[in-house]
């Protein structure tokens, strides 16, 4: 296969994959007798057409940045963490327990503690699959899938039997105290000039941006990051270099689980103000698409998260205003994962046709 120039690999391959996913989605929309043009315009206006729309897009993007980073860190250690969904839900449990434990006077006090709890619970839910992979050789993909289901069952049990306040019908915790509510972008000075209506995007966005930078720092500027990447490229070589596979697997998965768990300060603490059933709403899975689309780099993850935020918010608008069901966004999400993650060789082969003459010139 032709080796593509680096810029083509980083920029063109994801874009072409996105384009292919878009074309197939358009064909699907045509096949069910709707107009792709209308769908696209509804999606774009509904997700980026106004400050209000951006408020939702950025809210979703915040969650996806965390889960995308979670998948990225694990991917660099050649570990495929499908368990972001369960880790995020358990992280939500940690956040909820912290928020309910004390009558928090101000969010600046509640946020750091909630972050620690969310990260710890998320990491804990990744710890056992990581241990089983490192010590027992059981496949991390299968164990993390199993842990998603076990986590969901655990949360349902806790919400119905333990955390639900007396007299409340729906399975959810009590509302968090007002002091634990995170300010939205509408509540912040200066930013409220842009976001003049109530929106869900909140200060967690800045935590997510900071997390992107920290993950970059971890992966490319620390010894641990180097070890994770070396282990991911070649396990025998890493072993020969004295890198402990056990340590790398455990730490990469713990960081990954912590990042997924951190997501819940956005949705549980920032948006719903209480822990609900299935709080992560699939964001853990979207992290896979975001990481693949973002080429496993924090900058790429940031951009892909915004793109998927648009897809999510725009998809909701499509479900609301057109007769295309909201499930269209699940189809697009699946197609993006398919083209960027599984058919990437095909995309490269397609591009290779255009780059071959240049290569012979160089050679």
């Amino acid at each position: 296969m032709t080796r593509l120039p680096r810029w083509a690999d980083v920029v063109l391959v994801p874009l072409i994959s996105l384009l292919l996913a878009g074309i197939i989605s358009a064909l699907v929309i045509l096949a069910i007798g709707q107009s792709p043009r209308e769908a696209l315009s509804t999606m774009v206006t509904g997700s980026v057409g106004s400050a209000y729309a951006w408020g939702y897009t950025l809210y979703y993007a915040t969650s996806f940045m965390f889960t995308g980073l979670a998948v990225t860190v694990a991917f660099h250690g050649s570990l495929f963490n499908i368990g972001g969904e369960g880790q995020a839900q358990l992280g939500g449990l940690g956040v909820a327990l912290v928020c309910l434990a004390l009558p928090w006077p101000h969010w600046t006090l509640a946020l750091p503690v909630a972050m620690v709890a969310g990260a710890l619970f998320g990491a804990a839910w990744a710890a056992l699959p990581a241990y089983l992979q490192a010590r027992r050789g059981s496949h991390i993909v299968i164990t993390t899938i199993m842990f998603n289901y076990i986590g969901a069952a655990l949360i349902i049990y806790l919400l119905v039997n333990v955390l639900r306040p007396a007299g409340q019908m729906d399975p959810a915790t009590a509302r968090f105290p007002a002091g634990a509510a995170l300010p939205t972008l509408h509540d912040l000075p200066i930013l409220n000039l842009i976001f003049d209506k109530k929106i869900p995007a909140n200060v967690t966005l800045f935590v997510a941006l900071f997390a992107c930078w920290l993950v970059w720092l971890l992966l490319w500027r620390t010894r641990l990051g180097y070890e994770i990447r070396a282990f991911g490229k070649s396990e025998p070589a890493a072993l020969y270099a004295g890198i402990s596979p056990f340590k790398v697997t455990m730490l990469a998965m713990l960081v990954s689980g912590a990042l997924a768990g951190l997501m819940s300060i956005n949705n549980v603490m920032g948006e719903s103000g209480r822990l609900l059933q299935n709080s992560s709403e699939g964001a853990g899975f979207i992290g896979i698409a975001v990481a693949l689309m973002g080429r496993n780099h924090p900058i790429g993850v940031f951009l892909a998260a915004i793109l998927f935020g648009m897809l999510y918010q725009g998809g909701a608008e499509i479900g609301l205003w057109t007769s295309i069901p909201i499930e269209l966004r699940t189809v697009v999400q699946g197609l993006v994962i398919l083209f960027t993650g599984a058919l990437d060789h095909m995309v490269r082969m397609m591009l290779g046709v255009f780059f071959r003459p240049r290569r012979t010139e160089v050679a």
Partner: protein
Amino acid sequence: MDYATLLQILDSTIRLAVPLLLACLAGLYSERSGIFDIGLEGKMLMAAMCTGAVAALSGSVWVGLLAGIAGSVIFAAIHGIASITFRGNQLISGVALNFVASGITVLIAQSLFRQGGRTPPLSGDARFNPITLPFAESLSGVPVIGPLYSEVISGHGALVYIAFLAVPVTWWVLYRTRFGLRLRAVGENPASVDTAGISVIRLRYAAVIITGILCGLAGAYMAAGLQAGFGKEMTAGRGYIALAALIFAKWRPWYALMATLLFGFFQALALRPDVIKNTMGFDVPVPALDALPYILTVIVLAGFVGRAIPPRAGGEPYVKER
């Protein structure tokens, strides 16, 4: 627990185990050939929608079944193209196809019937009608065995018996035919199969298509046997439970039967919390029963109940030496 209740639970165990069993055997063919398949769930869902839709339109469950198999095989073929021809990541391909199936089934059902992403309720010949086995009536008076035969074993749809027949057939194919030997070999060491002059690619495609057909049966049974019509996400993680059962069974057909019956039994118990309370004397929370198959699989994966060793070449795309 009295005998009648036990029979009821065993009866629903069988009905709930059948989709798991078919999907588990489906996964067995694919994984034994060295192609991991996380997409059992998506294929079942696709088959359930196609069966539900076509059975509702044509009024015949058998036409619906064919449509279900076709839908599932299309997804299997895409998985094959991604993971065999283009040597893509098999796990990612499976995950992706599950998402596509989850969304596209609702899109199609909604555009066909406009009933909120469901297919219309099926009845009569559009469902798998119960088959009464010979002598079920006359033997029902015999104590103990009679009711067991007439209520638990007899009176299921055709696919139930096909599913149970598929177990010995799979065993026979896998261990007593040339195709089976080659299939097992290609999952362990594709290079040796290639050296013997047998096409790795053709064998793996064959396995993936068989997986598609069996998932088609599983999905069709969901839509036209277990329930009457397709509903959004109606497989509810059964593809993943089947995957768990496959590991639990260590990729062997008879064990797959036992694992799926066990997991089906858990599902049947989860539907009857009153029975557990009466027999055990305490309340077992339903979520605990729901999680039990997954917990058991993790225990098996941890190697506490004998090691579960997957086919050695599983997940690795085969690159011919040049």
